[in-house]
């Protein structure tokens, strides 16, 4: 393999406090001392406690709910059923599609999945509510359920034409290709399982609703609550200062939130309602189970001539979730002929949802496994075949990449991993009774862009305050916005206070699709630049300023002090200047919306995803890229697989804070290890119910499962992707991990596992 590489330096070599520096998490001290109050930890006067009752059948109707015993139980304030809960209006979806003109009841009479909320008990204490909830007796008229994709009643599903991608003549090119491979790849239901369960506190004051709820999207959720209750958007306040993990699952207002808000309204008291851990497996959707077939036609040198891809994902009986399975398939490799189509199949499940890199993640499992199979078919190194088929431009959009450091990622990762020492034959590397396998796979995630607002204030004491309704669920928003404001205004990061997680602050779109950092650093940079301009303008033009006599055109602000450019004038602190000119603060609003945007456009931008910019807008196709190199050790007798080493090289463009980005990358890789080896929702086929709905039986990685992981940034600033040059970080790193592990397992054992997770019975 010969690759000429330029190792991009995305870390800027910056001071810790500047953008690109390795500043420690500014919200860290609150989190390590227990001082950080998460949403449902607010202490409120008169708080009542709610516990949900869920359906125990997967399909049918509620015949009756007997609440007598529950209502008589000590401390019970109210038992809510579909008959007694107040009626709500239907709300629009996250595209902003107008809702159907019909009422919405968050407690179900018609049962479409096991675990659907059918009642709720509100009591004086949590213990009383939980005990009384167990006394609610629900009877059903049960009908046969479609358990999952493998159910004989499931059928082929509905064709989603918007997912069809075609160019060239893929079928004909495949038929005439000298080398042909075709295989089916499956991924099971997987769950986000954030450590903080979903829940909320709802409080009404007249027609104003305050909701303390972990949220990846305050303004979007506020819109939903407002529409449900028929109150103005401004009347709903969402508060979410810290979020205990989301991974896609905390972006939308859900039915349990509606139940709690109804209960608070009916009782005239604040109500706290938190899902039990088992309820989190059915209270919202995890990643849909998927099926893909990938067919590749190639020549004897491994050059791809055709890819034919067919995908299926499950959705619910009454909701629609499309997991875009062709998203990586169509862009990873140069191919002259391509066809991808997708169906969705209705099953009796909660509607699936977003989980870290929805679409790209299972898509990469298909294509990155298939190219490995092709490599073995033609006898070419798995890394070499990826380079031979390297896409020099976006094969689908036929546009130039904005930046694509994937070749560099392959080179740097291979070098650090020692890929050149790999012997290609399966079962050719071993250590005692452990078979050793080395695998590689690539990953990618599109750059999603949108608009954001932020306010930046320079206060009388010279400190800086940033406000935004965006959120920090661990990605580091507090920290990178402090760095952005500090660098732009010219103060220490310690002198910046960032306030997030309150919908009263300037608006922000969803923290999803790895877009928030790029959007919000842009907005804060704009607001901070405007605040700095005001400060310098005052210093130059105000007669009371010590700089007034200089007649300077500009001034330098650094480390909280103002000086003339050549250093030949006064040297005063920001606080002194504001005092001199009689100002108690300077405030600037920054928003990145086009200047002529209407109020309606702005509302739509912050409360729906309809205004997001396509990643192929204009002349470029924008994506993050990565290459994972994995070593597994497989016990020859027992088939147990351990990941023993990971080296990943990643291109997320410029990193705003490499320390925090590396943490997110490693976290994505670790979730990918769980996906490859452990994670799977297991259904009870008799009752259509998930069996392993808890953290002991739904296996997520533990500390003992995880080896040393090396991550290397190969990104370079990408001016087409964001104001400050970054691309997405959070979702990228999980993409490609599972196929890299599956490929390593093949190398170790000679067995190709195409059905996740790779558990020992599939190897012995």
């Amino acid at each position, binding site marked *: 393999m010969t690759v000429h590489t330029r190792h991009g330096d995305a870390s800027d070599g910056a001071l810790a406090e500047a953008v690109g520096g390795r500043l420690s998490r500014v919200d860290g001290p609150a989190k390590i001392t227990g001082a950080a109050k998460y949403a449902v930890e607010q202490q409120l006067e008169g708080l009542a406690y709610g516990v949900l009752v869920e359906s125990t059948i997967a399909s049918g109707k509620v015949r009756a709910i007997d609440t007598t015993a529950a209502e008589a139980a*000590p401390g019970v304030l109210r038992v809510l059923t579909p008959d007694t809960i107040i009626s709500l209006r239907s709300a629009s979806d996250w595209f902003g599609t107008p809702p159907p003109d019909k009422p919405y009841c968050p407690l179900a009479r018609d049962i479409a999945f096991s675990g659907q909320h059918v009642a709720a008990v509100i009591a004086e*204490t949590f213990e009383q509510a939980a005990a009384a909830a167990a006394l609610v007796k629900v009877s059903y008229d049960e009908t046969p359920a479609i358990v999952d994709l493998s159910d004989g009643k499931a059928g082929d599903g509905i064709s989603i034409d918007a997912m069809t991608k075609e160019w060239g003549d893929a079928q004909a090119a495949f038929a005439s290709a000298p080398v042909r491979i075709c295989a089916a790849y499956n991924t099971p239901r997987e769950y986000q399982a954030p450590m903080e369960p979903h829940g909320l506190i709802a409080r009404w004051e007249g027609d104003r609703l305050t909701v303390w709820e972990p949220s990846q999207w305050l303004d979007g959720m506020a819109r939903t609550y407002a529409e449900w209750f028929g109150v103005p958007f401004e009347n709903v306040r969402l508060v979410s200062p810290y979020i205990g993990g989301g991974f896609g699952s905390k972006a939308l207002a859900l039915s349990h939130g509606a139940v709690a808000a109804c209960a608070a309204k009916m009782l005239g008291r604040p109500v706290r309602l938190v899902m039990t851990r088992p309820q989190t497996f059915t209270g919202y959707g995890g990643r849909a189970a998927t099926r893909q077939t990938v067919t590749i036609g190639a020549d004897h040198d491994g050059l791809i001539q055709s890819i034919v891809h067919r995908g299926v994902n499950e959705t619910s009986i009454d909701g629609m979730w499309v997991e875009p399975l062709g998203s990586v398939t169509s862009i990873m490799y140069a191919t002259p002929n391509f066809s991808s189509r997708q169906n969705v199949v209705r099953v009796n499940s909660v509607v699936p949802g977003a989980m870290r890199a929805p679409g790209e993640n299972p898509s990469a499992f298909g294509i990155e496994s298939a190219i490995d199979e092709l490599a073995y078919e033609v006898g070419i190194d798995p890394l070499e075949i990826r380079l031979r088929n390297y896409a020099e431009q976006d094969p689908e959009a036929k546009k130039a990449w904005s930046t694509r450091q994937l070749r560099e990622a392959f080179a740097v990762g291979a070098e650090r991993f020692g890929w050149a020492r790999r012997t290609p034959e399966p079962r050719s590397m071993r250590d005692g009774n452990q078979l050793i396998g080395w695998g590689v796979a690539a990953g990618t995630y599109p750059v999603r862009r949108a608009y954001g607002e932020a306010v930046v204030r320079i206060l009388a004491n010279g400190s800086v305050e940033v406000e935004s309704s965006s959120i920090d669920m661990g*990605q580091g928003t507090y920290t990178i916005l402090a760095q952005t404001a500090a660098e732009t205004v010219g103060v220490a990061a310690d002198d910046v206070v960032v306030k997030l997680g309150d919908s009263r602050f300037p608006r922000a779109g969803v923290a999803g699709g790895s877009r928030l950092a790029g959007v919000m650093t842009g907005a804060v940079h704009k607001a901070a630049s405007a605040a700095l301009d005001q400060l310098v303008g005052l210093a130059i033009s105000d007669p009371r300023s010590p700089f007034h006599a200089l007649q300077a055109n500009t001034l330098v602000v650094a480390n909280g002090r103002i000086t003339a450019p050549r250093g030949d004038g006064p040297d005063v602190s920001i606080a002194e200047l504001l005092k001199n000119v009689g100002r108690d603060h300077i405030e600037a609003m920054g928003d990145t919306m086009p200047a002529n945007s209407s109020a309606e456009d702005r509302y739509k931008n912050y409360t729906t995803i309809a205004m997001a910019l396509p990643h192929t807008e204009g002349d470029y196709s924008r994506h993050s890229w990565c290459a994972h190199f994995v070593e597994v050790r497989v016990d020859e007798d027992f088939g147990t697989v351990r990941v023993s080493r990971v080296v990943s090289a990643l291109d997320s463009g410029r990193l705003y804070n490499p320390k925090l980005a590396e943490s*997110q990358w490693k976290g994505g890789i670790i979730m990918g290890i769980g996906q490859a080896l452990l994670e799977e929702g297991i259904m009870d086929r008799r009752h259509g119910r998930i069996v392993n709905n808890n953290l002991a039986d739904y296996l997520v990685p533990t500390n003992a499962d995880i080896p040393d992981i090396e991550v290397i940034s190969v990104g370079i600033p990408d001016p087409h992707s964001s104001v400050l040059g970054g691309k997405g970080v959070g979702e990228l790193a999980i993409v490609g991990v599972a196929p890299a592990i599956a490929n390593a397992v093949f190398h170790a054992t000679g067995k190709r596992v195409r059905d996740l997770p790779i558990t020992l019975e599939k190897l012995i």
Partner: protein
Amino acid sequence: MTNTIPVHLDINGHHHELRIEPRVTLLDALRDRLGLTGTKKGCDHGQCGACTVHVDGERVLACLTLAAQAEGRAITTIEGLAREGELHPVQAAFLEQDAFQCGYCTPGQIMSAVACIREGHAGSDDEIREYMAGNLCRCGAYPHIVAAVRQAALEVAS
């Protein structure tokens, strides 16, 4: 069940008197009755470790412990770990090594780590991984948690 009993709890060196039902867990007593919300509820079934506290110096899952069982014993929570504003070496190491993201499992991780070091189970990276395996972290901070425990163990020993 409406009967309440008096329970006296010694938490972080402070004495608290509660009147609660006997079925109230230590976790819910801390969080809902005493406002000590640093101890987190992740599963309520002893599966995730987020509620780890120390009772008489040993790590205990507060969700599987009734408050009444802890009467007369010394309880330490994350709020009581720093002394006079000085972070415990484990806390400082977690910040320095970026051993958390969302922060929700972090108090439990830190309480486990303090005990892990005290138990003499921080002798190697593999030993740390094993003795910290009862505390789940979905953000995937494990490699940095191992680094933080290793660093803090050296500081505590010196």
